[in-house]
């Protein structure tokens, strides 16, 4: 990185040109897309053949080489145990969760890894879903860098609106491993609305129906003059086109077994049957019938399938989306008739069955003029530009799931209800239930059910040092803070003593900081350089802000300084500029400290003047009021 030396007084705001590009990434279950926006127009970054979709499939060779995308998908049948697909379904999942998902996932799990985060056994290695996702993100980053001939270091990454805290954190961790700073995690339906809203300058209430490979989201938004306000969101983070593929594959395998008899299916055969099922599903969106071949035990078998029969197989899954839509409309406090348009997102919405269902639910033809596979990445790219270059649009999103803590009898006490606008901070008071209780275990959960075991466990921590009091006397205040990325932080304090504890909610199924650090070391050859340059960039932003603040103050109050004092400050500013140019973080920090020291007297005099002039315009009573605040 190169920094130009500026004359004192000319330090510019941090230049966008110093940074790499900021892209929008749709990290999908089946396919991923990367896009870049310039001047309010987003472009999907394509390969030589014009394809915008990068299959979210990773091949791990024995020699350690990693291949992502089409080439990896081709290896799916040849070397199934070296290929990972649909890893998004495992993001933020614990080994416990897999009991419910078992059998529906195309993975071989590392069973030795007990508790905590899921690990995959691939090509003799043990990988976390975070690492696999990082490999996909890295490939997308490289695609963008090759297309633009510039480095890419920041991204807006989309996540299903219904992703819980663990899955969001895992996504952010994956980006870090891939060397990308996450500008914002944006919910997929919200990103799609952004892509539509800006194009169509639509106003009113809209629904976004997003059925992807592995996740389903539906959001109700109000769009108005550049404001995108999410009213309610809902979904199922384990419902998508993959489920339909499975239903079709099982149908083929059952037909085969009826003819050739039951045999154990190998991993490769299962993956091949799934691949045939996916092709069948896609073909039947355009045709009425067809015939597909699967191979088991070395014997190929042919399977005819009509669209009607395929739709029968898919119907149970699609029906589930209808129930979720109705619940979300109710949550938004609106009637179906209030909705002015329905936007379709996700490859699975190409199925005629899905389109008919959407029309039935919402009573109107859905909009799909933007490619449903690319619309989310387009919205993400627009938001990346808005966040780095600036924009008048405003995204106001909500929490998808209620957040609460466990109380007596395994009952969940909700602290933040679902569909609360974010960022948000809410507190609830709890008390001890035993005399002399000095510690309290706090269990944070996410979900809508009343019992703890039906909700998702996010974290546990213990608040210690509660003073010895009778049961019910202590007042423990637990504060939940959800930031604009939808990520939760929890703090707890005891009101009578002020004992406080803060936890970033990471534990239950996440990576520890140590694991993260080790992965950064392993996965990025230049991990250290990368970290250093990021920290340096942050320090430079801070240093430039300080210098600009001092210069602004000099403009209005320089008469408070003697010539010598003024010169000291000018020199200190020059030192900060030089330190920035020297590319040395410690030097910048030291120069900032000197600047702070050189301006101390100046700041004091400015405060004196400010208070005096405020006093001049105030009566004594008003001053008392002011001081009493």
């Amino acid at each position, binding site marked *: 990185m190169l920094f130009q030396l500026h004359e004192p007084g000319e330090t510019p705001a941090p230049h966008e040109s110093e940074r790499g590009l900021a892209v929008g990434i749709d990290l999908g279950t089946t396919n991923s897309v990367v896009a870049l926006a310039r001047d309010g127009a987003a472009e999907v970054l394509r390969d030589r053949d014009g394809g915008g979709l990068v299959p979210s499939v990773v091949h791990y060779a024995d020699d350690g080489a990693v291949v992502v995308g089409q080439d990896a998908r081709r290896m799916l049948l040849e070397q199934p145990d070296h290929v990972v697909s649909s890893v998004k379904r495992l993001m933020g999942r614990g080994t416990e969760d897999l009991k419910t998902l078992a059998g529906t996932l195309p993975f071989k799990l590392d069973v030795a890894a007990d508790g905590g985060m899921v690990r995959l056994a691939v090509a003799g290695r043990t990988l976390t879903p975070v690492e696999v996702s990082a490999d996909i993100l890295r490939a997308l980053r490289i695609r963008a860098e090759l297309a633009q001939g510039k480095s890419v270091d920041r991204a807006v990454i989309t996540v299903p609106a219904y992703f819980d805290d663990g899955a969001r954190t895992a996504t952010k961790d994956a980006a870090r491993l891939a060397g990308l700073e996450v500008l914002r995690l944006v919910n997929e339906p919200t990103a799609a609305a952004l892509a539509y809203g800006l194009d169509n300058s639509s106003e009113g209430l809209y629904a976004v129906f997003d059925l992807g490979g592995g996740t389903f989201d539906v959001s109700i938004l109000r769009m108005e003059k550049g*404001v995108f306000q999410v009213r309610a969101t809902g979904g199922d983070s384990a419902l998508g086109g993959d489920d339909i593929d499975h239903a079709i594959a099982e149908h083929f395998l059952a037909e085969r077994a009826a003819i050739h008899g039951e045999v154990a299916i190998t991993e490769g055969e299962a993956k091949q049957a799934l691949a045939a099922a996916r092709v069948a599903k896609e073909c039947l969106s355009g045709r009425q019938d067809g015939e597909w071949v699967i191979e088991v035990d070395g014997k190929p078998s042919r399977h005819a399938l009509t669209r009607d029969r395929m739709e029968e197989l898919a119907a149970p899954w699609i029906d589930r989306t209808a129930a979720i839509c109705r619940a979300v409309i109710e949550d938004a406090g609106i009637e179906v008739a209030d909705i002015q348009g329905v936007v379709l997102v996700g490859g699975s919405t190409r199925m005629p069955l899905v389109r008919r269902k959407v029309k039935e639910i919402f009573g109107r033809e859905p909009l799909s003029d933007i490619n449903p596979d690319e619309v989310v990445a387009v919205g993400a790219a627009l938001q990346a530009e808005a966040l780095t270059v*600036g924009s008048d649009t405003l995204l106001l999103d909500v929490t998808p799931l209620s957040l609460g803590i466990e109380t007596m009898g395994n009952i969940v006490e909700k602290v933040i209800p679902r569909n*609360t606008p974010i960022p948000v901070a809410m507190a609830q008071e709890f008390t001890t239930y035993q005399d002399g209780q000095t510690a309290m275990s706090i269990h944070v959960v996410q979900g809508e059910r009343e019992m703890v075991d039906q909700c998702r466990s996010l974290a546990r921590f213990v608040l210690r040092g509660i003073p010895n009091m009778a049961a019910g006397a202590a007042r423990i205040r637990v504060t939940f803070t959800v930031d604009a990325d939808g990520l939760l932080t929890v703090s707890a304090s005891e009101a009578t003593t002020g004992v406080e504890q803060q936890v970033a909610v990471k534990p239950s199924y996440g990576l520890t900081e140590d694991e993260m650090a080790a992965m950064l070391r392993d996965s990025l050859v230049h991990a250290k350089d990368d970290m250093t340059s990021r920290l340096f960039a942050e320090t430079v932003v*801070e240093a430039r802000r300080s210098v600009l*603040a001092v210069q*602004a103050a000099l403009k209005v109050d320089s008469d408070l300084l003697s010539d010598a004092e003024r010169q000291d400050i000018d020199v200190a500013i020059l030192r900060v500029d030089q330190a920035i140019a020297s590319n040395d973080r410690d030097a910048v920090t030291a120069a900032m400290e000197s600047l702070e020291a050189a*301006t101390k007297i100046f700041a004091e005099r400015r*405060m004196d003047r400010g208070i005096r002039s405020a006093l001049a315009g105030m009566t004594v009573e008003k001053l008392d009021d002011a001081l009493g605040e």
Partner: protein
Amino acid sequence: MNVSAVAAVTSCWSCKGPVAARALFCSVCGAVQGPGAIDHYTRLGMSPSFDVDLDELQRQYFGFQRRLHPDRFAAKSGKEKALSQLQATALNEAYETLKDPLKRAAYLLGLRGHPVDLTACGTINDRELLMEQMEKREALAEATTPEQVAKLAMGNESEVIACQCHISAAFNAGNLDEAAHLTIRLKYLVKLAEEARAKKSRVIRTP
């Protein structure tokens, strides 16, 4: 704007100079300031009344969020990001409180020094209200068709609106006891409306 607003002065965290305690941005260096301890009405630039123009409230809320939302500070320093998050959080809390008549009534009673506790789930000590609520609940429990539920919900809805009008009148007459009494009644009416809505979707789903 209230000209006599207290012009308390604090120190800007960024340029260290004087800044009005209620300023959103420093007039000298432009840095965003913390949200400060101001009431929800002041925060959204609304006059403290029960009668709130919801369109104006939303315009004010969007206007402040446009300037203070963390998305406006993505390229700024860590401190500015953190302050904008606090500002946006405070705006959300203010907006969510003021747009809801029940929360707004309870909040305004608190501001006027006559707090009511809406979270207390204790017994209703108003005999008349108690009898009325028991009757309505029974009627809802006995309703079996969507039409019956809808009829009850509509009746309740008009009572909600009437109750809000009475609360407004009580505030305007400065009768806080009456406003508090009606706010508690509104709480039960709203609760019944929620139950009716839940029942309506149950009745529709299981014909």
